């Protein structure tokens, strides 16, 4: 029994190390809602209004539009920064790549509309530039932050209208798969290895020499029970750790759609797996 617990413990350790290695991407802020105001430029009700506007748009067309107001670009170019944020947040539905990211950096007086692959046809660079140059820029200059962003969103929605029909399947961006195929394969592999060592252990005893001596000792005598227990523990721990790991991966502290912007779905909001090739336009004001 003791040995089985030890086996399970090691399995969990291996799991944890593997998962921690995949968590990275610093300096991209957490995706907390559709409207991410890290510079405190909008009031709670303004945020909620924009949030509703964007949520309605997604419900209709599955297009995912997010707004990011970032205090400073810290020397980065707004294009590179937007690309990094976009690919981390994965805006837009998988395969459709119908995401849009509006970035505004007040300190640098820069703004950008970053477009996913799927919307490049309707939301061309020229269209994006015109929206920034004629609508958002002048409004930001005049201090009409909310009005500018609202008009920008309205123009974007107008531009992309009809590009995608809301297909019921495209909406199912809610729960991600519990395990990816590679994770499952890894689990199976560990299961088989455990089983092999258990068989060998039965045959040769726990203190068999050679290169695999240590491993034999760790996994020996567990037999089929060890495999079953390991798999169950692995599944449970994996499922429990999943939100934590996801949180680490996106730099989130786990509090989705917190104060004021609660008009998003009850389960929070996240990107649907879309990708961008750097389309869109930037402008300063």
């Amino acid at each position: 029994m003791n040995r089985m617990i030890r086996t399970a413990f090691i399995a969990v350790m291996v799991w944890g190390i593997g998962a921690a290695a995949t968590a990275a991407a610093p300096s991209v802020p957490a995706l907390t809602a559709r409207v991410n105001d890290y510079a405190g430029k909008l009031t709670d009700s303004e945020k909620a209004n924009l949030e509703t506007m964007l949520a309605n748009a997604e419900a209709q067309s599955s297009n995912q539009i997010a707004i990011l107001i970032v205090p400073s670009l810290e020397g980065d170019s707004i294009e590179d920064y937007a690309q990094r944020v976009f690919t981390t947040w994965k805006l837009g539905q998988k395969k459709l790549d119908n995401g849009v990211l509006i970035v505004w950096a007040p300190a640098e007086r820069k703004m950008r509309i970053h477009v996913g692959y799927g919307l490049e046809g309707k939301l061309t660079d020229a269209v994006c530039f015109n929206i920034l140059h004629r609508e958002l820029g002048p409004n930001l200059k005049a201090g009409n932050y909310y009005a500018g962003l609202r008009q920008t969103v309205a123009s974007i929605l107008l531009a992309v209208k009809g590009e995608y029909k809301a297909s019921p399947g495209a909406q199912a961006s809610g729960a991600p798969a519990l395990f990816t195929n590679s994770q499952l394969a890894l689990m199976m592999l560990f299961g088989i290895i455990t089983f092999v060592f258990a068989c060998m252990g039965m045959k040769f005893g726990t203190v068999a020499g050679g290169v695999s001596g240590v491993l034999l000792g760790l996994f020996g005598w567990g037999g089929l029970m060890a495999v079953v227990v390991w798999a169950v523990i692995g599944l449970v721990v994996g499922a429990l750790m999943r939100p934590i790991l996801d949180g680490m991966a996106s730099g989130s502290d786990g509090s989705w759609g917190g104060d004021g912007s609660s008009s998003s779905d009850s389960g929070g909001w996240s990107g649907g797996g879309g990708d961008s090739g750097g389309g869109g336009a930037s402008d300063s004001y």
Partner: protein
Amino acid sequence: MKAALIAVVAIVAVVALWYVSTYNSLVSEREGVRQSWGQVENVYQRRADLIPNLVATVKGYAAHESGVFKAVAEARAKVGSVNVDASSLMNNMEAQKNFLAAQQGLGNALSHLIALQENYPTLKANENFLTLQSQLEGTENRIAVERGRNQKAIQTYNTDVQGFFTSIIARRNGFEVFPYFEAKQGSDSAPQVKF
């Protein structure tokens, strides 16, 4: 005896599983490299397609800057002449180098064209020109993104091909390292146009 047999069967199964999955991932990674290179060529083509409009617009305001227009035309012709089939380009370091050098030359010529606005305030204020300029910037940004992705794909693939155990499979099945021409820092970034 029975246990030993099971053990042997299990080990064989694990090795076979590993072999197949490694082979498959090498195939898909190599495909990823080719696909991402295709994207690189696409975005370069996109830039080339913008040129006639851009030149026509600038000419309307700065017709006598013939040197700049000539340079753009020449650089564009050069790009057209090195554009060969994607698969061979990817495996040919020299061709890749020439291709990227020609594209870089075109990028430089275009940045001179864009810079003409400094001397022609009416051009600078022209809406059509502003839009074309934003399209050019957008395309340059796409080039940077797709080139970055291609290099990353090559890196991933090459690392796997040369991996300690993976290389056994790679060598047996003819997976070769992709040579790639590493661009100098900043040479493929958007032309800097200051106002």
